[in-house]
C-alpha cells in the first residue's frame, strides 16, 4: 500500500509535474525557465504565488518551503516556467533544503534566476547576488519587502545598484503587489547577460580556483569559478557529484583543497565569505542610504520583544494556547462543529444511507462493508467528516495564524534551553506544535531540523507524546467537565514527553545540537494567505489521510468477517482489564491503531454510552494518547526514517503506553482520586 498514486493525482490536479518522462504536463519546452532563489523568509513563495497565481505555502519563519513548487506564468507573450526553491543562505549545500536548491541550479539550466532579497538586509543579500553572478547565471535582483525596509528607514538607489552589479534590479512589496508590474516586464524582456561584478580572493585562493577549474572537465551547469569555490569550501554534495562523473580527478582535487586550507588559520568558507562580503559591503555603501530609524518602537516591535521575554512571554504563550487551542479548537470546533455534524450524521445521513444501501445491496456481507458497525459510510466517512475534519481544519487555521505572525521563532527561542535537555533545539517547536494538528504532517516537517539525531528524537516524540488535534479535540470535549481529569491527563502526557525525550537524548549517540534562528519581525497575518494555507493543508489531509480512513474501514470489515477482529479484542481484554478499563476500551485501542484519533473518537462513543467515566476515562485517554501512531504516521515514518526506525519506535511505544496507563491507574486508585 502506498500513497503515491494519490500524490500523482494531486499533482495532476494542482498542475505540478511529477518529473517522469510520460508526464502529460511536461510537454515540449517552448517557454523560459525561471528559478526563484533567495535566503529563507524573504518572500520567494509570495513572489511565486503572485507570478503564477498558484499557491506555494508561505510562512513567517525560515524553512517553510521544503518541497519544490512549479508553476506557469504568462508575462506578455512570454510563457514562463517558474520554479520556487527552498530558502538557501548560499550556493553551498549545508542543509537538506540547500542541497535541493543546489541540485536545481546545477540541473535545471534556468534561463533566468530571480534572486529574491529582503531589501532591509541589502549588504548581506548582495553577497549572495555576487555569488550567483560568479556562477555565470543570468540574474535579476528583486529587492522584496520594500515596505518594511522603508519603514526601517532604508532607501535604495536602484540605478546605482544596477550600475554596480551590472544586472537588472527591481523593488517590490510582493505581499501587497507593489512593483510586480515592473518585475513582470523585466521578466518579459530577453534574459539579462551575466552580470559584471567580480570578487578577488586572496592570491592563494585565486591560484587554487584556477587549478581546480582546469581540473574539472565535465559540464556541471555553473561556471568553473563557482564550482571551484564550492569545492574549496568542501561542499560534500558537489564533491559527490564530481566523484560520480570524474572519479579520476578527485584525489588531486582533495589535495589542492587540503593544501589551500593549510595556508589559512580559518576555514576557507570563512576566508571566502569575508572577501565576498567586502565587495557586497562596498556596493551596498554606494546604493543604500539609512535614515535614522524611528525612535519609538512600534506596536509590532514591542509585542515581538514581549513575546521573547522570559517572564512576560509566558502570559502571551498562555493566551495563545487558551484562545487558539482551547477556545478555537476545543470549544468551537470540538463543541459546536462536531456536535452539529455528529447529530446530522446520526439522525439523517446514516439512517438514510443504511436504508439506501441495504435496498441496493441485499447481501448482508457486502452491505456491512458500507453501512455496518465498521462500514465505510457509517464509520469511515462519519468519523472523517463529522469529527476529525472540523478539528483538523480549526487547528490548521490557528497554526496558520501563528506561523504568519512570526510568533513561532520567538517560541523556539524561549524553549531552547528546555529542549536542549531532551536532545532537541528550539527549532523543533515548529514540527512539535504542528504535531498538535496532525502528527503525520509534522513527521514530514521534521525535515527542518538540522541533524539526524534531532529528526529521530522529534519523530519519536511525535509518535509517543504529542496528541494530534483530532485526539485533542475529543479529549478536551470529554474532559472539559472534569477539570481535575484534564489536569491529570495534561500533566501525565507532558511528563512523559519530557521524560522520554530526556531518555532518548541520553541513549542516542551524537552531540548536542546548536541553536541559531533568524527572528523575523512580527507581522499581521494576511487573511487571504491564512485561508489559502489552511485550505491547502486541509486538502492535503483530505487527499492523503482520509483515504486511509476508508482503508481502515475495509480492514476492520475484513477483521470482523474473519473474526480476526474479535480475536484481537479478546487478546487485548486482559491488558485493558489490568488498566482498570471496561471491555469496550479494547475496541477503542484497536481502532486507535488504524487511526490515532479513531481511538479517541471511539472512546467518545463509549463515553456517550456511559460505559466509561471517572478514573478509567482518564487512564484510557492517557493510554490512547501515548498509544501507537496511526497507520498514516507509521507510513510517513517509514518513508522518512526507514523501516527499522518505524518498527523500533512502535515497539517501544506499545509497552510504554500501557505501562504508563497501568501505573497511572494504580496511583489514582490507591490515592482514591475522585474525578
Amino acid at each position: 500500500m502506498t500513497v503515491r498514486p494519490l500524490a500523482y493525482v494531486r499533482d495532476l490536479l494542482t498542475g505540478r509535474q511529477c518529473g517522469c518522462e510520460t508526464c502529460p504536463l511536461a510537454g515540449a519546452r517552448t517557454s523560459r525557465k525561471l528559478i526563484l532563489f533567495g535566503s529563507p523568509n524573504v518572500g520567494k513563495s509570495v513572489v511565486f504565488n503572485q507570478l503564477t497565481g498558484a499557491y506555494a505555502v508561505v510562512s513567517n519563519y525560515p524553512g517553510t518551503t521544503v518541497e519544490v513548487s512549479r508553476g506557469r506564468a504568462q508575462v506578455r507573450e512570454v510563457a514562463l516556467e517558474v520554479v520556487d526553491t527552498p530558502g538557501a543562505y548560499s550556493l553551498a549545500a549545508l542543509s537538506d533544503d540547500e542541497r535541493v536548491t543546489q541540485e536545481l541550479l546545477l540541473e535545471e539550466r534556468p534561463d533566468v534566476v530571480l534572486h529574491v532579497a529582503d531589501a532591509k538586509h541589502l549588504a548581506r543579500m548582495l553577497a549572495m547576488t555576487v555569488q550567483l553572478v560568479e556562477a555565470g547565471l543570468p540574474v535579476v535582483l528583486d529587492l522584496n519587502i520594500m515596505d518594511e525596509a522603508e519603514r526601517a528607514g532604508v532607501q535604495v538607489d536602484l540605478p546605482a545598484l544596477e550600475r554596480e552589479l551590472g544586472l537588472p534590479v527591481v523593488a517590490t512589496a510582493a505581499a501587497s503587489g507593489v512593483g510586480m508590474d515592473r518585475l513582470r516586464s523585466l521578466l518579459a524582456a530577453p534574459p539579462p547577460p551575466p552580470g559584471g561584478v567580480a570578487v578577488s580572493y586572496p592570491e592563494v585562493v585565486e591560484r587554487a580556483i584556477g587549478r581546480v577549474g582546469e581540473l574539472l572537465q565535465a559540464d556541471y551547469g555553473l561556471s568553473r569559478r563557482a564550482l571551484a569555490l564550492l569545492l574549496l569550501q568542501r561542499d560534500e554534495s558537489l564533491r559527490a557529484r564530481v566523484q560520480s562523473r570524474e572519479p579520476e580527478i578527485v584525489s588531486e582535487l582533495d589535495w589542492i583543497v587540503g593544501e589551500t586550507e593549510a595556508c589559512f588559520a580559518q576555514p576557507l568558507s570563512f576566508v571566502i565569505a569575508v572577501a565576498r562580503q567586502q565587495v557586497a559591503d562596498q556596493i551596498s555603501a554606494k546604493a543604500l542610504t539609512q535614515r535614522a530609524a524611528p525612535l519609538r518602537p512600534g506596536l509590532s516591535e514591542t509585542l515581538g520583544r514581549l513575546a521573547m521575554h522570559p517572564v512576560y512571554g509566558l502570559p502571551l504563550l498562555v493566551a495563545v494556547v487558551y484562545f487558539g487551542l482551547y477556545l478555537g479548537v476545543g470549544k468551537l470546533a470540538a463543541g459546536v462543529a462536531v456536535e452539529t455534524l455528529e447529530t446530522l450524521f446520526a439522525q439523517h445521513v446514516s439512517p438514510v444511507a443504511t436504508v439506501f444501501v441495504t435496498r441496493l445491496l441485499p447481501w448482508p456481507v457486502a452491505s456491512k462493508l458500507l453501512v455496518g458497525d465498521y462500514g465505510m459510510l457509517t464509520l469511515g466517512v462519519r468519523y472523517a467528516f463529522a469529527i476529525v475534519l472540523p478539528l483538523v481544519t480549526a487547528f490548521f487555521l490557528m497554526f496558520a495564524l501563528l506561523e504568519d505572525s512570526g510568533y513561532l521563532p520567538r517560541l523556539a527561542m524561549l524553549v531552547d534551553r528546555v529542549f536542549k535537555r531532551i536532545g532537541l533545539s528550539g527549532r523543533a517547536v515548529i514540527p512539535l506544535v504542528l504535531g498538535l494538528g496532525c502528527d503525520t504532517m509534522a513527521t514530514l516537517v521534521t525535515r527542518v531540523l538540522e541533524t539526524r539525531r534531532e529528526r529521530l528524537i522529534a519523530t519519536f516524540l511525535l509518535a509517543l507524546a504529542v496528541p494530534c488535534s483530532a485526539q485533542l479535540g475529543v479529549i478536551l470535549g470529554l474532559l472539559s467537565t472534569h477539570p481535575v481529569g484534564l489536569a491529570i491527563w495534561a500533566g501525565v502526557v507532558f511528563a512523559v514527553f519530557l521524560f522520554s525525550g530526556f531518555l532518548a537524548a541520553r541513549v542516542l549517540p551524537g552531540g548536542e545540537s546548536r541553536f541559531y534562528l533568524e527572528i523575523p519581525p512580527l507581522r499581521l497575518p494576511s487573511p487571504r494567505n491564512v485561508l489559502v494555507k489552511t485550505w491547502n493543508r486541509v486538502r492535503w489531509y483530505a487527499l492523503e489521510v482520509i483515504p486511509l480512513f476508508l482503508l481502515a474501514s475495509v480492514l476492520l470489515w475484513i477483521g470482523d468477517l474473519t473474526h480476526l477482529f474479535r480475536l484481537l479484542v479478546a487478546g487485548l481484554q486482559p491488558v485493558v482489564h489490568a488498566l482498570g478499563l471496561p471491555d469496550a476500551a479494547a475496541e477503542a485501542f484497536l481502532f486507535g491503531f488504524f487511526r490515532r484519533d479513531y481511538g479517541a473518537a471511539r472512546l467518545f462513543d463509549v463515553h456517550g454510552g456511559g460505559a466509561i467515566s471517572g478514573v478509567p476515562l482518564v487512564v484510557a485517554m492517557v493510554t490512547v494518547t501515548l498509544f501507537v501512531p496511526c497507520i498514516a504516521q507509521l507510513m510517513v515514518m517509514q518513508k522518512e526514517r526507514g523501516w527499522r526506525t518505524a518498527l523500533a519506535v512502535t515497539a517501544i511505544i506499545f509497552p510504554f503506553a500501557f505501562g504508563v496507563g497501568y501505573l497511572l491507574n494504580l496511583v489514582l486508585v490507591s490515592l482514591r482520586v475522585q474525578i
Partner: protein
Amino acid sequence: MREEVALSDVAEELLAGLWPEQEAAAAAPDPKSVSTREAVEELQAKGLVEANGPALSLTATGLTTAAGVVRRERLAERLLADVLNVSGALATETACRFEHLLRRGLDDEICTLLGHPRVCPHGSPIPPGPCCAEGAQAAAKVVSSLADLSPGQGGVIAYLQSQRREVMSRLLAMGATPGAPIVLRQRFPSLVFALGHTELAVDEETARDIYVRLTRASKPARQSRLRLGFRRRHGGR
C-alpha cells in the same frame, strides 16, 4: 596558582616546543647549539624536563610551566591580531618576542581584556588561565565573546571561532561576518542580537563563538522597562 620560574628565552621556547598540543611543525631548536644545551641543562636543573635518552619529556611542573608559556604566546598573537590589527608573518614574529615580556599576572590581564579567547588566530587552543575559570571582567574590555556582553552592549564582529564548521558557515551565511555591526538585545532564555536590521537568536554555546570588538560605550544601555533582572552571572567555562 601557577608556580612560575624565571627562564631564559631559549629555555621558554624549548619548553613550549614540548607542549603536547603544540603542532608538530614547531621549529625544533638545533640540538647541537651551545645555547640549546645550556637551556636543556637549565630546565633539568629546575626540574621541568626529564631526559629519556635523546628525547626530552615534561615533568608535572614542566607541564604547567609550558602551558603558561604557550598561553602567553598565543594570547600575544591574539592581542596583535585583534587589537593592533597586525597579521601574517609579522604577527607571529612579533608575538614570539612579545610573549617573553608578558610575565605572570599580565597574561591574565590581557586574556580578560580580549574576552578570554579560546583559540589563537591560527586555531590552536589557548590553555585557559585562572581568569578564564573565574570569568573575570575587565573594566574596559576591547574584544569580548558575545556570550559575555550585557544587553545593550555591542560593536562590530571581530572574528568567529568555532570547533564546528557547519556552525561557522551558518553564522557567516546569516550575515555574521567580520565587520558587521552587532548589538546584544537579550541574554535569557536564549541570546538575541541584532545584526544590522536582522535579529538572530542563538544559544550560549554559539554566542561564545562570536567575538565582538566593542565600539559602543562599555556601560550597558539603560535597562528598558521590559527587562527584569534576568542577566545571569557570566558563567565561566
